[in-house]
Structure formats: C-alpha cells, structure tokens
C-alpha cells in the first residue's frame, strides 16, 4: 500500500468527514487522520456509541450526526484514529503519532480541520481545581456519561444554555446560571436580524432552551459582570456584580464559557496567513470561499476556518474537496462551479446567521483582557497580567518578544490558553489594533513527544515533492 494520497484530511469532525466523503465519491484516494479514538469531532463525539441510555436528551443537533459518522465509516476512505498530527512539511508530508510511534503519509492536497476550542476565560481563579469549561461538561457527558451536580455555569453563548438544558433533562442539579451577556446585546444584534431570520428553526430552538432553564427554576443572574472565582487552593464559589451589587454564589465546581475560537496551532505552525476577525474577536486563517489558504496545496475547513458551526462545516468540507479535485485535474472548472453553487449559497446564509450570534453573544472585554494584575494570563508558566505588563514595560512590544522575556506561551499548551489574551493585552497597552500586534510564532512538533518516540525518527526521510512522485 502506498503512503501517498490524492487528498489527506486532518480531523474527522463534520467538516473533515464531509470533505472525505465528497473526495471519495469523486474517485480520489483519501486518508483521514483523527486524534480521537472515534470519528465525529467534538460536536458528534461518540454519537454512534453513546454511553447514555437515551442520547436523544442531548438534542437533535447531536443525534443527527450519527448518519454522517456511519456514512464516513462505510466509505472507501483510509481512516486512522488516535492519529495525532505533529508536523506538516512543505511538500505535503504529514507526520503523526499513533501508539507511541511516529508514522508518515504524503498528501498531494491537504484539507485540515482541527476544529475549535473554547475561548480562554482569564479571570481571577480560573486556574483553580474545580473550574472547567462548559465544553468540558459536554465532552464528559457525551463520551463518559459523566456529570457534576450543583455546579455554576457562567458566561455567555448558545453552548452554555445547551449544556444547562441537557443537565436539567438528565436530572442533574444546577446551582446557578451567571449570564454575562451584556444588556446591550440585543440592540447590537438587531442590525443582523435579517441573518437571524434566515434560520428561524435555530432561533426558536434557542428561545426554547432559555425557556426550559427558566421553567426548571434554576437561579439565573443576567447581565453579570466582573466575574472572579473564589478559593485559595480550589474553587469554592463565584463572585460577580449585577446591577451595581456584588454577589457571591457558593459552588465547588464552575463551568465557564464565552464562545469558541479556531484551534489555530496547526494553521499557525504551517505559516498560513491569518487575520484578526473583528466580528468574532479571534485570529482566523485567511481563506477563499473554498477554504483555500495562502499555501497552494492546503485548505482549511470547519470551525478552524472561522466559527460557523457544524452544519456550515459540512458544506465547507464538500467545497474544499471539490476544489482539491479541481486542482488535481480530476474535476473540470465548469463542474467545480456547478457542483459548488448550492454549498456556496448555504455558506452565505450560515454566515449571515452567525453575524447575529456573534453580535449578541460578543464576549465582554473585561473577561477577555484581564485588568487585575494578579490574574493568570498564561496558565502553564503561571504568568500573571502584572508580570506580562512588567515585560511590556521592559520593551517587549509583540507576542514573541513577550514570550522570550516572560516565558508566557512556552508551556505544554503552546500558547493555546494565552495567545489571544496576550495579543489583546499588547494591543490595549499600545492603543493599536490587534491586527498590528500579531500572534506567537508557532512551530512543530504540535504535541508533546517522548524522547523514545523521537529516537525512531532517524528512519524517516524527508518526502519528495508530490509533483515528483507518480501515482
């Protein structure tokens, strides 16, 4: 079996699986590398093997993923699970870890869909044991059927309400919902109401979720601000302000959430061009409508390409696969245009809808850009905002200089939890747009590798350029 493929796809979420299905249908040789034990990404995590007796309590957006996962499992695709990609070479060479060994594939065209991660929530005490993300509550529920009674859910965004509703349906107690969506959210979002009305089913579902939480009698604190976690060595509660008054609610567990952002370590390490997306307040790869990046043989799809959600990701995956087939000379320009049109139209309407959500649930500056000097910005190297400020005053004006001086972003998470905070802090301190500040320079390997594994590396030779290799 050859290790050279027409199309290699990284990540088996809705975007990656859809790209693989389209490419296989079009007759390409396709390999998919996915870090998890089963395909589905975060959204359709374990949807075909739920640990729950009745997975329908998780909602139809989840259960309808089963069909896609099943189609993916049946198609003529080279599937590799537990395959954690740690390097992508300029020639299409992909190195990944599997069973503590590094393996290799070569791609003529690469479609990468590393997905999203939750936006960091750098408030006082967010590093304490007992503080997790709302996304983690979903992960634990979907994969392990594991829940936590009596927790506080705090922050903003549809995912926060969804997990609370899921918990309530399962009889899990919720101590409080502390909602940081500002009072002006509705007004800000109204200019995008046209986009929202293009997806009435989503709007209705959203309202029903809120109603469900209300009816259950969970205390909801609206328009909360200035969140901080109480506790010395572990979380004991959450303090916040509402209507000018300070409140505190006791809980040994707090789930935080303020939206999701592209998981950009792979696209950054590749040197793909990025820009600061003002609407979504995050760094985003710069791409065309087919997901084509600034590197000729690489496309980026799914939420890693900018947050659009699972349904849009399916269309994006198909578009990137069609474009890859066209670049490989296996699909004419006319067929590309014709087969792309429905997907392009769908993407446009999802984008309009997303504008509404982005405006409504925009995370407030105080929870993105820490103002208290003792708040940790970098969790791994334990660098507080005050220490970063001191580094800035010593002359570190950009993220890489600050990293060199303070070690922020040098820990095992490779900047995932502090990168956006550092970009925004430096922008505020210099009164410059974030786009002028930039982001950490990232490099391979993109995961922790043991010396044992690296020592086998002598057997691996650089790949030839795909153009020099015959099929």
């Amino acid at each position, binding site marked *: 079996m050859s290790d050279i493929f027409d199309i290699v796809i990284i990540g088996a979420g809705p975007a990656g699986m859809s790209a693989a299905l389209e490419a296989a249908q079009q007759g390409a040789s396709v390999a998919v590398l996915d870090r998890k034990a089963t395909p589905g990404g975060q959204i359709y995590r374990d949807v075909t093997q739920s640990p729950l007796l009745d997975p329908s309590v998780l909602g139809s957006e989840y259960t309808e993923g089963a069909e896609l996962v099943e189609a993916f499992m049946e198609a003529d695709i080279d599937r590799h699970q537990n395959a954690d990609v740690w390097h992508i070479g300029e020639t299409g060479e992909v190195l990944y870890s599997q069973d503590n060994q590094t393996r290799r594939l070569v791609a003529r065209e690469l479609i990468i869909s590393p997905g999203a991660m939750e936006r960091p929530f750098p408030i006082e005490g967010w590093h304490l044991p007992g503080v997790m993300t709302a996304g983690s509550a979903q*992960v634990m529920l979907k994969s392990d059927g594991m829940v936590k009674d009596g927790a506080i859910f705090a922050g903003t965004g549809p995912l926060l309400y969804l997990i609370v509703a899921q918990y309530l349906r399962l009889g899990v107690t919720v101590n409080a919902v502390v909602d940081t969506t500002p009072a002006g959210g509705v007004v800000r979002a109204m200019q995008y109401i046209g986009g929202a009305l293009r997806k009435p089913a989503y709007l209705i579902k959203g309202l029903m979720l809120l109603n469900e939480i209300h009816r259950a009698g969970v205390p909801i604190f609206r328009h909360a601000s200035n969140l901080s976690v109480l506790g010395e060595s572990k979380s004991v509660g959450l303090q916040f302000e509402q209507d000018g008054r300070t409140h505190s609610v006791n809980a040994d567990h707090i789930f935080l959430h303020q939206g999701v952002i592209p998981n950009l370590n792979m696209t950054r390490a590749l040197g793909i061009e990025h820009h600061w997306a003002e609407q979504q307040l995050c760094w985003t790869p710069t791409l065309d409508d087919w997901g084509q990046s600034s590197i000729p043989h690489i496309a980026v799809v799914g939420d890693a390409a900018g947050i659009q959600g699972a349904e849009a990701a399916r269309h994006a995956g198909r578009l990137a696969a069609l474009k890859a087939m066209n670049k490989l000379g296996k699909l004419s320009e006319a067929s590309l245009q014709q087969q792309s049109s429905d997907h392009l139209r769908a993407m446009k309407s999802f984008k309009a809808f997303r504008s509404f959500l982005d405006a409504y649930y925009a995370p407030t500056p105080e929870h993105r850009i820490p103002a208290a000097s003792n708040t940790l910005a970098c969790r791994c190297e334990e660098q507080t905002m005050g220490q970063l400020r001191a580094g800035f005053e010593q002359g570190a004006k950009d993220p890489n200089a600050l990293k060199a001086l303070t070690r922020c972003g040098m820990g095992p998470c490779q900047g995932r939890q502090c990168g956006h905070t550092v970009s925004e802090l430096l922008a505020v301190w210099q009164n410059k747009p974030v786009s002028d500040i930039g982001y950490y320079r990232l490099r391979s390997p993109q995961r922790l590798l043991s010396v044992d594994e690296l020592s086998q590396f002598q057997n691996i030779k650089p790949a030839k350029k795909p153009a020099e290799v015959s099929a």
Partner: protein
Amino acid sequence: MFRSLRKPETQSVSININGQMVQVAEGSSLWAAMALHGETQTRLALVSGQQRSAYCAMGVCFECLVEVNGVPNQQACLTTVEEGMHVCSQDLTEQSIAALHQKESADHE
C-alpha cells in the same frame, strides 16, 4: 463528586489510580475514570507547585497531565483506559526537575 450516567451493561476493566485498584468502564477516558473515583488532582503547577486539575477535557489546556505506566506528561482526557494501567497524579515541578538533574549529574561524577 462527579457521577456516572453510563448504561449499566458496560464492561469494566481494572486500573491502578494512585496506588488503588479500581474498576472503571471499558472505553472510559482516563480523566473520567480518575474523576469518578474522586482523584481529580492531575498535575502540579510547574512554578508554584499548586494543585491543578483538568480544565478543557478535550486536549487543548494540558492541565490534565498525569503519569501513565511510568511515563509522565500524558493527557488524561485523551487517554483511553486499558486493563492493568498504572496511573499517578504527577508531581513534577521546576524545582523537582532541577533537583533530579542535580542528583543525576552528582551520580555521574
């Protein structure tokens, strides 16, 4: 305490968490197995030595690093349990690593 809503018919495997043999559901993530047995401490903070626990449960925060079968820095949330697995909360800090290096070079001389 975390609790499990897993279907009752699930098969189990036995693993050792911090010196104690426990039964956990086959296919569990190591983090879930630990949390369901009250072992929520994963690593220590490298500089301050403070206790840490899992934050994201999906592989992006690296707070859940633990020692699996003697190998440190394994992400518990991305590891699936296996029969006979030996897991320890890890106590590596900058101080302990420096002490280890010092001892190694002293032993060498």
